[in-house]
């Protein structure tokens, strides 16, 4: 079952159905995991082989839901493209939505491009209700669901997938997928854009899998959208705690939410702190500033002169190296100062330099204080650096 590119898929669809499919393929984001559009595969035709031209009018649609992928068959009839489609719900043979509640089916309008997408969304809502009903096989899991439902922060953004109850062992499993109500809007734009992937919507999803009905085997996992993941420092930037034994979701989910919120705040604060730091250095060193990172405020280069001896000072890696390993821990982590001579070279042809990581520093100082202290340190260290450059470097 290979996935076709949208263009190829559309080219094979019967022309009068293309408008409906176009909306689904290009704009079809449903459910909590809307990072990817809906996919269609297995395009087939309901016409005889004598029908000329593209005549595919039935296909499989892949819908992400609660960490699973639902594969539904959608059946049109090319001879009557105005008629609404029929559905086969794959493995969920017991799922039978109430037709009267599917307004976009009752009032099907093939001329409306988003009609099919809206119908799919309505069916998905009923599917969610169907899955929630199936939680009744386990009182424990039903309790989890009901308790989350009461909380408006989580109740409205929840998807549940209940597995089949094993008639032999009585085992029953379920997965909860929750969208965490964390505000990512203040994350600096540059952090979110610095990714090769289409960032999509900034979202954090918490998946909690219950492998048994008594909640003795619970496996949580946090999914971050690519932009957020990059902004926080990579996939391993955030480690969520294990689900406590005997715990419940209504306690655990807010805990994870708070942890993520703290991390985001830390990143935001770090950005502002760096900006303040750079601004203070600009203020104190004025024309001595050669260049600085005006977007992320992660680097600053100064050209200082002491007794006719010029030296470049690079204040770099206000975020740790490499960026992807750690979050932005400034001002907690001390910036690195690299002194570089403009005259002397090393034997390898590089400018003679020295890196200083320990100098008077406190994360509690504000930017102004840091700039002052840095200035004092420069005055004391540059003579030593000069001596070292003359001794070890060559002109």
């Amino acid at each position, binding site marked *: 079952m290979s996935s076709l590119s949208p263009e190829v898929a559309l080219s094979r669809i019967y022309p009068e159905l293309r408008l409906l499919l176009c909306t689904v393929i290009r704009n079809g984001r449903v459910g909590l995991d809307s990072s990817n559009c809906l996919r269609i595969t297995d395009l087939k035709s309901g016409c005889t082989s004598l029908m000329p031209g593209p005549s595919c009018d039935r296909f499989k649609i892949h819908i992400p839901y609660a960490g699973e992928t639902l594969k539904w068959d959608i059946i049109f009839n090319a001879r009557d493209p105005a008629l609404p489609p029929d559905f*086969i719900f794959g493995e969920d043979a017991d799922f039978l*939505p109430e037709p009267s509640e599917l307004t976009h089916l009752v009032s099907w309008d093939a001329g409306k491009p988003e009609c099919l997408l809206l119908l799919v969304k309505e069916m998905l809502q009923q599917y969610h209700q169907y899955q929630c009903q199936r939680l009744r096989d386990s009182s424990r899991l039903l309790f989890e669901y009901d308790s989350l439902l009461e909380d408006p922060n989580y109740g409205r953004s929840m998807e549940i997938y209940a597995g089949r109850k094993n008639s032999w062992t009585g085992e029953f499993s379920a997965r909860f997928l929750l969208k965490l109500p964390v505000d990512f809007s203040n994350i600096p734009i540059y952090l979110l854009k610095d990714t090769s992937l289409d960032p999509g919507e900034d979202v954090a999803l918490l998946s909690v899998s219950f492998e048994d009905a008594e909640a003795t085997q619970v496996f949580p996992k946090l999914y971050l959208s690519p932009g957020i993941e990059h902004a926080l420092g990579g996939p391993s930037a955030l480690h969520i705690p294990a689900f406590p034994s005997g715990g419940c979701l209504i306690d655990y989910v807010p805990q994870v939410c708070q942890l993520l919120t703290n991390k985001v705040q830390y990143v935001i604060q770090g950005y502002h702190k760096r900006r303040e730091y750079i601004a203070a250095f600009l203020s104190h060193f004025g024309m001595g500033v050669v260049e600085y990172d005006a977007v992320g405020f992660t680097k600053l280069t100064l050209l200082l002169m002491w007794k006719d001896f010029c030296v470049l000072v690079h204040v770099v890696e206000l975020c740790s190296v490499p960026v992807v390993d750690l979050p932005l821990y400034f001002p907690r982590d001390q910036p690195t100062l690299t002194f570089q001579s403009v005259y002397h070279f090393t034997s390898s042809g590089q400018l003679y330099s020295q890196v200083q990581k320990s100098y008077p520093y406190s994360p509690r100082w504000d930017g102004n204080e840091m700039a002052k202290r840095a200035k004092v340190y420069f005055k004391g260290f540059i003579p030593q650096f000069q001596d070292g450059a003359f001794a070890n470097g060559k002109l």
Partner: protein
Amino acid sequence: MAASISGYTFSSVCYHSANSNSDHEGFLLGEVRQEETLSISDSHIGSSEFLSVIEVHNHEPCAKLFSFYDYAGNINEEDLNRILKDRRKNVIGWYRFRRNTEQQMSFREQVIHKQLTHILGIPDLVFLLFSFISTANSSTHALEYVLFRPNRKFNQRISLSIPNLGNTSQQEYKVSSVPNTSNNYASVIKEHGAEFFDKDGVMKDIRAIFQVYSALQERVQAVCGEVDQSERVREKIQEEVNKLKDEIALRKRNAAEEERTLQEETNAPVTLPDDSALHDPSQSTLTGAVLSSSPLSEPSLERPVNSSSPQLYNTTLPPDSPNAILLPRPQAVGSPGHPSPGLGLGNGDGSSSDSLNRQATGQEDQEDDDDGDSSEYENLVSEQLQPSSGTEAVSLGRPATLWPDGDAHSPPGS
């Protein structure tokens, strides 16, 4: 539950469907009958099973999709009646034809089925799904069909059989039980039927054949009776022959005994047989066999067999006197010297020492096998021809009843 559809109905549905350039649907007409199967096992406990059989006789195709329901699947009963007309009572299910889809009821089909069940009042309404699957290059096409029983748990599937679709050379050609509702057929039969059918509606030829069959059955039954009677007569005669044989053997042994005794008394140099041979029942049996002149593989005794034996036999045994048979020999039944008729004599416990001893010595008494041996019969006849001996031989009969065990033994060959 089982289901069957006649070949012509099935092909008609396929024809309509295959010629449709889209999905196609219609109704199945037929009847449901109950079959009772009574099975009897070795435990003689009979059990009956009831089987519902759905028979599809005809179908009513719909002209187009959504012809009797709306977008939400709500059925319009007026449209339904317009399609079915007066055939509504014959509806047993409905069908759908879809190309290149899963063999599973769809959302709308389930909705419609529930309503049809309720509207038509058929609790066990069935649904027949045809799927036409084609490969990508259209080189292979497969028509698959599944009969669903959606109102049962797990959407039960029923096997649908098509009578005579198969190798009819290996199996019997089945006549369809579909009732013929054609008016034309009925009128033709009515007009020309008298030439072929009798007043009861049965074909005349069939009745004639049945009469022949009955006559043959009667003859066979009669022959069976005759065979039975002749077999009984034969059995009776065989029994008499066996008795006579026993009698002869006994008399011969008695004659030999007497002769020996006489010789001993007269102190005549007589070549007597070995004692072990005399006391060995198998040897005495062999002696009897020699006297009866059946061809033996190994004559173990050197006693001369002469034609005077029958005379001795005759003179020593008084006619028709049980006392003469019961010679004063203090020997128990089954002892080696116990005069044996030669074959199969029991030891009172059902065992036969003769047969055992015969096997032990490695010699077979062919008297057992020579039941109808002509030489034995000739001896008997020669004895009987002698005036006194023949009569006495016949009259002396029934030695078997005189044996202490009371059993009448017959040679194994009889």
